[in-house]
C-alpha cells in the first residue's frame, strides 16, 4: 500500500472514525483503525463490535493494500501536522510509514485479516430520511436518554411507527424515568412495516456528528437487531439494544388542567440565573405559580437564596412545584417557539411541556420534592 493524501481530508475522516474506538480495549486490534487503499479511494474502518463506521475519502493511490494501526495515535499525529501538509502513507511488512514535510513516523501494524468485520445481515426495512428531520429526532430527545446500566433498554432512543389522529408518524422517544422527550416526523415511504427499535446512545452520538456536515437524504436500513445509516461518504452500522422499551404512553398525563404559558427565553434565562446560587450538581428550582405570574426561587444551604419574578399567562389555582433546573433547561433549550406551554396537575405529579410553535414535540418532567 502506498498513497498520498491531503492532511485536512485525512484528519476529517479520522476524527469521524476514531471516536468509535474505545480508549481502553481488552482486544488489542479494537484500538486500531483499518486503512484500505483501493479503487482510487482510501477507506477507514473502526469498530467496537457493537458499532462500525466506514468512511471513504479521496486519495492519490500509488499502490492498493490494507492494514490496521492504532487509531488514537494516528489521529493525534495527523492532528498535529501543519495545515496543508501532504501526508504519505506506505506499508512495509509490519509497519506503516507516515511522511509529512520533515516529519516521519513508523507505526506498528496488526494484520487486516484479524480486524473484526461487523456483518449487518439481512436488513429488510429500507427508507430515506432528510438530514434535518433526523437531526430533529435526535436533538429533541437525546438529552433524556438514561445512563442507568441496570435499565439498559432506556440507554437509547426508541424509534417506532406511531398511530395518531393525523395518521402514522415516525416517532422518537427517550426517557430516564425522571423526564421524557417525544418528537415525531412524517412517516417516510418504506418505514411503515418497521419494528420498534432502540438505537444505543453511542450510535446516536456518532450519527449526530455527521449531521453537522451533511444536508442530503440519509439512507436507513434496519432489521430487528441491526441498523445501517448511509451518508455521502460514510456508512455507520450498529447493533440495536435488545430489550423492550416500556409502554411510555401511560406516563404521559392526560388530565393535567392547570395551563401555564410563558416566554421561553425569559423563563430559560431566569432559571439559569437563579440556579447560579446553588453549587450543587442537581439544583432544584421552586416555581410558585399565581395569577399571571410565577416566582422562581433557589435555596442553597451554603450560599444563600435567589428569587426572580416573571410575568406569565396563568389563571388556575395557585400552586408550588419544584424541578431539577438542569432538566428544565434541557427541555427549554429544545423549544423553538417564543412560548412554552406547561400543563400541571399538582406538586407531586408529572408536568407536560410543549413547544408553543411545534405540536410534534412533547416533554414530560417529574417534579422534585420541595
Amino acid at each position, binding site marked *: 500500500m502506498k498513497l498520498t493524501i491531503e492532511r485536512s481530508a485525512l484528519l476529517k475522516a479520522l476524527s469521524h472514525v476514531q471516536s468509535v474506538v474505545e480508549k481502553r480495549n481488552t482486544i488489542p486490534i479494537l484500538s486500531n483503525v483499518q486503512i484500505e487503499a483501493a479503487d482510487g479511494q482510501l477507506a477507514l474502518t473502526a469498530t467496537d463490535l457493537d458499532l462500525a463506521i466506514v468512511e471513504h475519502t479521496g486519495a492519490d493511490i500509488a499502490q492498493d493494500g490494507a492494514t490496521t494501526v492504532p487509531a488514537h495515535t494516528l489521529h493525534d499525529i495527523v492532528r498535529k501536522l501543519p495545515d496543508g501538509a501532504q501526508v504519505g502513507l506506505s506499508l512495509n511488512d509490519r509497519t506503516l510509514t507516515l511522511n509529512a514535510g520533515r516529519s516521519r513516523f513508523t507505526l506498528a501494524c496488526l494484520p487486516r485479516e484479524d480486524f473484526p468485520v461487523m456483518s449487518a445481515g439481512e436488513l429488510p426495512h429500507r427508507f430515506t430520511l432528510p438530514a434535518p428531520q433526523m437531526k430533529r429526532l435526535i436533538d429533541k430527545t437525546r438529552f433524556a436518554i*438514561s*445512563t442507568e446500566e441496570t435499565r439498559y433498554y432506556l440507554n437509547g432512543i426508541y424509534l417506532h411507527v406511531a398511530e395518531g389522529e393525523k395518521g402514522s408518524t415516525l416517532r422518537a422517544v427517550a426517557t430516564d*424515568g*425522571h423526564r421524557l422527550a417525544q418528537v415525531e416526523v412524517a412517516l417516510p415511504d418504506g418505514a411503515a412495516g418497521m419494528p420498534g427499535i432502540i438505537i444505543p446512545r453511542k450510535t446516536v452520538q456518532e450519527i449526530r456528528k455527521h449531521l453537522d456536515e451533511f444536508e442530503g437524504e440519509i439512507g436507513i436500513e434496519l432489521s430487528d437487531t441491526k441498523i445501517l445509516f448511509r451518508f455521502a461518504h460514510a456508512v455507520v452500522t450498529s447493533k440495536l439494544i435488545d430489550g423492550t422499551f416500556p409502554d411510555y404512553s401511560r406516563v404521559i398525563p392526560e388530565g393535567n388542567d392547570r395551563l401555564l404559558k410563558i416566554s421561553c427565553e425569559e423563563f430559560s434565562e431566569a432559571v439559569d440565573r437563579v440556579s447560579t446560587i446553588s453549587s450543587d450538581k442537581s439544583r432544584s428550582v421552586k416555581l410558585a405559580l399565581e395569577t399571571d405570574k410565577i416566582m422562581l426561587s433557589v435555596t442553597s444551604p451554603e450560599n444563600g437564596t435567589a428569587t426572580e419574578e416573571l410575568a406569565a399567562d396563568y389563571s388556575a389555582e395557585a400552586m408550588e412545584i419544584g424541578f*431539577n433546573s438542569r432538566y428544565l433547561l434541557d427541555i427549554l433549550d429544545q423549544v423553538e417557539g417564543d412560548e412554552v406551554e406547561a400543563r400541571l396537575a399538582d406538586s407531586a405529579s408529572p408536568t407536560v411541556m410543549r413547544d408553543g410553535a411545534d405540536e410534534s414535540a412533547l416533554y414530560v418532567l417529574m417534579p422534585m*420534592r420541595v
Partner: protein
Amino acid sequence: MDCDAFYAAVEKRDNPSLADKPLIIGGNSDRGVVSTACYIARTYGVHSAMPMVQARKLCPHAVILKPDMERYRIASRAVRNLMDALTPLVEPLSLDEAFLDLTGTEALHGLSPAEQLARLASDVEKTIGISLSVGLSHNKFLAKIASDLKKPRGFSIIGKAETLDFLARQKVSLIWGVGKAMCDRLHNDGITHIGQLQQMEEADLLRRYSSFGGKLWRLARGIDDRQIVTGTAPKSVSAETTFEHDIADYETLEIHLWKQCERLSKALKKKDLAAGTVTLKLKTAQHRQITRSRALFSPSQLADRLFEMGQALLKPECRDQIPYRLLGITGTNFTPAQMGDTPDFLQPEKDRHAKAERTMDQINARFGTQMVKKGRSV
C-alpha cells in the same frame, strides 16, 4: 485536647462499680478488636487495636463491653459545647480528640490560653465526669505531641523558645507520618533522633526521602503551618461487619447487607444527605480486599434503594462461593437529601416503597426506634 480512654471513661462514669476494674471496650467475638482500654487494663499491656483474643489472655479478669456509640456521641457533644464556648475554631479529629485555635481569645476571655484550657479541663471533669489531657503549643504538630506527653489528666506546653531543644531529644518516630517503614529506613541511615534531622540540610533530606524529606526537615524544626479546619462535611458514610465465621453463600450475606443498608440509610437520613455512589467492600478469608462501586442514577438515602444497588454489586462476587470474613457498604458523593430519590414515573412501585420507608421512619421517630420494621430485618 484529648479525652483519656474516652469510651471506657464514659462507661465508668455511668457505672461506678466498674471504677476500679480493668475495662476493655470492643467487639467481644473471636475476631473483635480492642477499641479502648482503661488505664487499669493498660497496665496489663492491653492497648487499642489489639485483637480481643490477645487482650483476654493478657487480662483475663477484665470487664469487656461492646461500644455504645450513641452514649459516647452525647458525651462528646457535651465536651464540644464547652470547647465551642472558648473559640469558634474547633477541629474535631474524632469523638475524643480536637484541635482548638485559641489565637486572639486572651482579650476575649481575659485569661491566657493556658488558663482557659486548665479551666476547660476542670469544667469537663466536673460537669461531664470524664478527664482529658491538654497539649498547648504554637502549631498542630506540636500541640498533638504535647497532649500525648503526659496522660491521663496531662497538661503540657511546648513554647516557641524551647521547641528546637525539646524536639532534638525526641525519637524520629514521634514525627507525624513516620510509620514503621519510614522509621526503619531512617534507622538504617543512622538517624534515630530528631536532633540529627535538625543538623541536616533540607536539600539532603529531599534527595534521600524525596517530598517526605521536606516534611521531615520542617517538622524536625517544629514548623507546621496547617490551619484549623472546622466543620468539614463528611465525605463518606459506611457500615461494615466482620463475621464470627466466614460466609460464602449469597443469601446469608444478603441478610447482613440489608442490616448494613438500614444503618447506612439511618446515618444518611440523620445528616440529611443522599449518596450518589455505593461501594461494596468484601474481605476474603485470606484478607484480600475487594471493592466494587457504582453510581446511583438518582442519589439516595433510602435503605431500599441502597440495598438494591448493594445486591447488584454483591451477587457477582458470590458466584464462586468464596468465603468472606467481612462485608461492608459505603455511601459517597453526597448531595442534599432533597435532590435525591427523585420519583421515577416508569417505576411507580418503587415510589410506593420509598413512601412506605418514609412513613416507617416517621412512625419510628414518634414512637421509638424499631416500632415498625421490614420483615427482612427480623
